[in-house]
């Protein structure tokens, strides 16, 4: 069994991980084995080899296990994750961590479109860049992107925090509700009803906590600007029709 890096997830010291080689076993076997875990199982360390861009790797995880995916994945890795700690040692295709409930997903490389879409909880960390529509319709998830994010990110974002250490593309936070956006770099443009907001002490504290949880060092919360909803589109008004 190959040596693995023990992450900070709950893991018995010295315990070997359960290895799934997707070159030899099917995606179905992997996900079924993860779903078959009983609460309190001591099989808390998992390793997935040769994902080779497979879709739906480790979706629907509902136990506090740590899963190291050795390579890049396709669509929806960690979809609806509820308590798992998933680390992708590569890049992730569209919809990584979509609708996550709780737990943590770390992508060591880049992420494609819709990263963290509709996520309700937990923490999604993209150590590279994220493409368009990052955090679309987010509903409580925290997302930290070390690099840049693409256009239409946080579209209709309802709740949660999106932190971007780099730049944001066009139409950031279009039609945003109550989600908070923190961007350190340049914002190409803001979407409808999204405005720059004052960074108050409670926001600095919140942001610093997020940076710490995401393992970001050497970056200060004070370097970010905060964006959020102007709340002018919350109730339909014909005089705002041009904004829709």
């Amino acid at each position, binding site marked *: 069994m190959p040596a693995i890096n023990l992450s900070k997830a709950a893991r018995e010291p010295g315990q070997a991980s359960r290895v799934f080689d997707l070159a030899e076993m099917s*995606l179905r076997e992997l996900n079924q084995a993860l779903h078959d875990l009983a609460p309190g199982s001591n099989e808390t360390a998992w390793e997935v080899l040769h994902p080779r861009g497979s879709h739906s790797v480790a979706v629907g995880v*509902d136990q506090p296990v740590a899963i190291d995916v050795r390579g890049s994945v396709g669509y929806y890795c960690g979809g609806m994750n509820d308590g798992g700690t998933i680390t992708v040692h590569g890049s992730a295709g569209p919809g990584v961590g979509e609708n996550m409930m709780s737990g943590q997903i770390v992508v060591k490389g880049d992420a494609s479109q819709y990263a963290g879409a509709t996520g309700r909880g937990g923490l999604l960390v993209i150590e590279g860049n994220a493409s368009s529509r990052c955090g679309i319709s987010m509903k409580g998830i925290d997302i930290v992107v070390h690099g840049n994010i693409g256009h239409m990110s946080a579209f209709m974002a309802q709740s949660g925090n999106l932190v971007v250490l780099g730049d944001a593309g066009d139409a950031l936070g279009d039609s945003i509700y109550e989600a908070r956006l923190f961007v350190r770099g340049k914002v190409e443009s803001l979407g409808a009803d999204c405005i720059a907001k004052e960074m108050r002490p409670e926001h600095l504290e919140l942001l610093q906590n997020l940076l710490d949880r995401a393992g970001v060092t050497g970056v200060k919360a004070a370097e970010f600007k905060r964006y959020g909803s102007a709340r002018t589109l919350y109730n339909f008004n014909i005089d705002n029709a041009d904004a829709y």
Partner: protein
Amino acid sequence: MTYRNPPTTPRKSATFDDYTLSEIRRAAATGIYDIRGAGAKRKLPHFDDLLFLGASISRYPLEGYRERCDTSVVLGSRYAKKPIELKIPITIAGMSFGSLSGPAKEALGRGATLSGTSTTTGDGGMTEEERGHSKTLVYQYLPSRYGMNPRDLRRADAIEVVVGQGAKPGGGGMLLGQKISDRVAEMRTLPKGIDQRSASRHPDWTGPDDLEIKILELREITDWEKPIYVKVGGARPYYDTALAVKSGADVVVVDGMQGGTAATQEVFIENVGQPTLACIRPAVQALQDLGMHRKVQLIVSGGIRNGADVAKALALGVDAVSIGTAALVALGDNDPRWEAEYNELGTTAGAYDDWHEGRDPAGITTQDPELMKRVDPIAAGRRLANYLKVMTLEAQTIARACGKNSLHNLEPEDLVALTIEAAAMAGVPLTGTNWIPGKNGF
């Protein structure tokens, strides 16, 4: 005596009729388009334009009440480990908690369960009322993903990926602030009292290739147990059905323009999408061309009102129908007993469609705690079950008359059409002729 020229009778324009004039005045006064609930109200080619032939010398009938006429249907047999088995081919369509009151959702679950059929969640997540009172519950997977979570996904009996609905193919949802109670707001993760615009597109996929991957994800999360439906509005039924099959659907749901909505623009409801009757044959044809007819099941909805409509839809090749508006009427929607209150709202029983305003006198399309008390979920559920029973008996009556021992043995050859339009759409002969418009070069 002076001679007067005979007066002409005042004539109103067919083009600028009273409704049209009132709408122009309303638009001029308010500057906003009209929003309402329900489906298309205009006159459309429909099941009324079809007739069954019945038995004759060459076709002998089955004895009513004595000889068996099967009504059961299995949905989801293509891939799902646990297909749904229903006693009747009439299901309850998706309607959201938020749009409907909690007691109304509970009544739908109770009525469906008494009848051995399924009910469906809507754009607002799954409530305990409907899960608890529904033996078979279809969980909608919608663009908004309000309330979506893996626990509910796993305790659903089937999953319906909603691409569109008949009232507004290409439109998102709209729930105005006045219906956003604390409970609705919490389920949707939004502040109380604000308008909720449900997205028109899914946030994390576009197109048939993505849909195939999305369906794979949903199957993997639920260990391939649940049937997966794909619901489309009546836009391009041939291609949408084919693409849903290609994407891995177990069941395709096609909703015609008479299908209702909680709220959208009047102009959208009346001018986008196709009538239910026009959608059926193309959808069936797509399944037949792919060799998947009866393997991937087809559910059709939009304006189904009675057992004759059910029998006609099944004869045209669908596996089951779904009802929404009719089910609400069975619960008590638009009941003349509330006429005085409808009048106060500027309308009349049978025409009330401002469901988005949350002031429904019948207590169904509201979140007002006092109004919703008017729905007794047990009694209303019983009425829905009664109505479903009548529809089923009516469909069986017709099927037996056509010599069929199963509703699903009804076939297009049992039908003729009263109008050329219906003949062309249904692909059955115009009554009194052997002419099917569009067939054999004519």
